[in-house]
């Protein structure tokens, strides 16, 4: 059960992010800012930070690709590329097992911001939209970072426990 838990969680989030999340964010916020909820990315960042970079890369590529298929609008591969790359980078960060909640959240924030920048960059590069960077930064990227950090905070304790259980399992297997 624990072994399968990661992809089950990611699958659940993939299914929910298109339906629940649009209705959970208060409408008043949505009039001013546009939030992209990358809850899958948060889980992938947890995998990168607490397990290892290779599984983060693989989960990122696979679930990013699923997201790309389901919401195909402009191009395939943006989410897959972004999730994989950022999961891998998160895995390369120096690991401190002090369990500081703040440093983890900061990493999450930076990760989400990097992902948003990648996404914006790719869309601009392929010329599918011409949104002003300043507008995108203040109205999409920053609110998304804050919102996703909120989610990261909410799942911090269960995710830490799960990661520790997974690590323990791995040590036993070795």
């Amino acid at each position: 059960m624990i072994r399968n838990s990661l992809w089950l969680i990611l699958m659940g989030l993939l299914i929910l992010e298109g339906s629940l999340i649009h209705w959970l964010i208060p409408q008043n916020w949505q009039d001013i800012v546009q939030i992209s909820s990358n809850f899958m990315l948060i889980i992938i960042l947890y995998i990168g930070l607490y397990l290892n970079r290779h599984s983060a890369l693989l989960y990122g590529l696979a679930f990013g690709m699923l997201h790309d298929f389901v919401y195909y609008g402009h191009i395939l591969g943006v989410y897959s590329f972004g999730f994989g790359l950022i999961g891998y980078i998160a895995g390369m960060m120096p690991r401190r097992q002090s369990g500081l909640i703040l440093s983890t959240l900061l990493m999450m924030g930076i990760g989400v911001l990097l992902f948003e920048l990648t996404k914006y960059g790719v869309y601009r590069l392929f010329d599918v939209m011409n949104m002003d960077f300043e507008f995108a930064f203040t109205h999409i990227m920053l609110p998304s970072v804050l919102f996703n950090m909120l989610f990261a905070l909410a799942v911090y304790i269960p995710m830490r426990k799960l990661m520790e259980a997974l690590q323990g399992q791995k040590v036993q297997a070795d």
Partner: protein
Amino acid sequence: MLKFMGNKRLIVLMLGLICFFILMGLTLSGRTSFYWPEKFLKDSIAWTQSLFYRPAASVSGFFEDVSKLKTIHEENQILKKRLTDYALATQQLNSLEDQNKRYKEALEFTERQKQVSNYRYRIADVIAASPDPYNGTITVNLGEKDGIKPNMAVMNVDGMLGRVLTVTEFTSNVQLLTDLSDTQANKSKAISATVKGKEYKSGQNQGSYGMIQSFDKEKGLLIMNQVDVNDRLEIGDTVITSGLGKVFPSGIPVGTVVSREPGDFGITHKVAVKPFADFRHIYEVFIVEVPEVK
């Protein structure tokens, strides 16, 4: 940087980068049909998503409703009055339709002309909406099996929403108007539009006409270009689709005119249109099916 990612790793990363950019370049907005693994994945995920969108929407809708309870009574009164008007209008419509049919027969309309405005409205439920703000795609629960084809117009009771972008067996992806853009690679279709009451009629050179080409995300307005300087279009007018572009049927309400100013080259005017539809909270949509002429 090189120190803690060795040479081999760097090469793999570069190869990955190249592969992804090739994939992105190849799939750049041009495709309307999928391969079967994509279809299978998408349909199975969409089916699961359809279990969640409705309950989530109704829970959130419940809280909105509670806060709106006071205005509902008032609304109810107005709606009751409307209903009687509606009954009257239906009656009139029936007799007018009958009359119209006789006139058409008298004028010996061809089958093609008769069919041209006989649209079918297919009701579809929304299954999921893209969480990516740059990508306004929603998934609806009608697909190839139900006769949905790419480029069909999509609307709801408020007005125009977008067009069908891709179809799979049981679902289809709808590109919302918020994704309209006049950049090179964005292959969204411009919408030919006119103004209600000032439509173009043959033989008469005064119809309003413009092309809705892009969406200004910063202000939430649609931009209509190529409006003639002498056009009679005014601020406050209702913009509807004209049907001249051959992609969308005519007469679908789009929005109201909020501003008009000289365009980029000064030859034509640029008009900002506030869309009727709210693109964020959509429960169900109508897909407009134009009957094919055999």
